[in-house]
């Protein structure tokens, strides 16, 4: 199976659409940074306007940490959308080009094939997050430097630079688990729908519904429902980090990853090819 994974990764990086996807992510980062550059101070002034009436505010809040925090907010929709579109294509393009048939006509087991798709989805997602973190950090800290981080979550929170850095790092890690969940889901949707456009629509719908359902109160059952887990990375920006909640959310999210993967594999094996 290692050979299969290596071959799949080779194919992914030989295709232009992979680089278009990475370019899209990079362009989004550039937009965030440009927006911060041109309007960041204004926005902060608006945020803190009422405070400045009663307080002196000394220091630079428009810094690399804040810009990275804004980049992190692309975890809500932009980044998962791009990831889901690219990753689902790993399978739907095989259906479209019928190369799935070519592969299945070789001495390759169905379970190995589909497991490879999931593994490659995970590897690719991890690479994307590393790419995002590396490029965003480089640009943000080079252009905007260091400083305290301000967020508004359960109050106006100020974090000193070293704390901000560790929180941002942890938030990226948490966001990575979330992106893995979306990535796995997109493969499972690709197994269900097979066709490229329908799978894209399903992915977009899944993303929109997750974001909408996040706002609904499901009571205690909500703790287990996956839309309620998609904001876990934000907990790292509460002044007092709710660690038990974070651990719980991540465990449940990983359980969903396993569940969706297993469901997808079983469905794929059961179905005929072609």
């Amino acid at each position, binding site marked *: 199976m290692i050979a299969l994974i290596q071959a799949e990764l080779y194919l992914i990086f030989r295709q232009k659409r992979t680089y278009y996807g990475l370019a899209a992510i990079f362009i989004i980062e550039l937009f965030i940074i440009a927006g911060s550059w041109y309007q960041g101070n204004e*926005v902060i002034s*608006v*945020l803190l306007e*009422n*405070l400045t*009436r*009663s*307080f*002196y*505010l*000394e*220091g*630079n*809040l428009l810094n690399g940490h804040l810009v990275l*925090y*804004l980049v992190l*907010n692309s975890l809500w929709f932009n980044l998962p959308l791009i990831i889901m579109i690219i990753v689902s294509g790993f399978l739907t393009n095989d259906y479209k080009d019928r190369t799935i048939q070519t592969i299945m006509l070789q001495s390759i087991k169905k379970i190995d094939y589909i497991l490879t798709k999931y593994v490659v989805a995970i590897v690719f997602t991890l690479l994307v997050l590393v790419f995002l973190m590396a490029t965003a950090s480089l640009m943000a800290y080079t252009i905007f430097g260091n*400083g*305290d981080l*301000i*967020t*508004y*979550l*359960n*109050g*106006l*929170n*100020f*974090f*000193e*630079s070293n*704390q901000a850095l560790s929180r941002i790092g942890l938030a990226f890690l948490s966001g990575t688990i979330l992106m893995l969940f979306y990535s796995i889901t997109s493969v499972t949707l690709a197994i269900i729908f097979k066709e490229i456009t329908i799978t894209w629509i399903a992915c977009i719908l899944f993303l929109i519904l997750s974001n909408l359902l*996040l*706002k609904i109160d499901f009571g205690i059952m909500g703790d287990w429902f996956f839309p309620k887990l998609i*904001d876990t990375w*934000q907990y790292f*920006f509460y*002044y007092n980090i709710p660690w038990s909640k974070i651990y719980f959310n991540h465990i449940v999210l990983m359980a969903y990853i396993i569940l969706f993967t297993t469901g997808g594999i079983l469905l794929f094996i059961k179905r005929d090819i072609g």
Partner: protein
Amino acid sequence: MKSLMLILIVSLISFHVSSQEIDSDLLTIKERMDNVIEARAAAKLELDVDFINMPVKNFDLYFQKSKPISYSSDHFIIIPKRGLDFTWNELFKHQFMTIYRGTEIHEGSTLKVLNVIPLDKKADYAIMTLKLDTIKNQIRIADITTKNEGSYLLFLNYENDNILPSKLTVQFELERIRIPLNFMGKDTEIDKEKLKNKEIKKGIIFLYLTWQEVLTN
């Protein structure tokens, strides 16, 4: 004769009033404060405000006579505009009168209570209540009502009989503070009713000062 008596009485009253305008103990404190030409301190600030979460901030504080206090830090700092004027610049800048209100015991010390009323319309406080330690010549408590910036209560602690405080505690109110929603954060669990009702927010600031350089006359 009658008119002469009237003039004499009015003059006496005026003299009495003018001689009672500024309390002598307060003047002593003012003189002590005037002796300080410049001073530098390492400051530690703790903020206890309902809607603000901020770690303890360390910064350098620099005071020069007749100039506003300045602050410097590598980190971001948030400093209330009111309440940290322990040099009493604002108080002594404008003409005022004092009215003796008796004494009060605070932390084992007997404090002299004075009301301070500005005589200058330019003063930005409406009324002040000062509680003085007349033995050590220090202002220990100040209850200040500003014209536009709300009220605050200031507690000052000193090392021995120094004129510059080593600890300030400021209790204050913030009016009409609007926190913009949905900015850079989660937009769930926002209780708008709760926010509306709590437009007036209270907070406490603790400022610890370690004076490193004090230059006096």
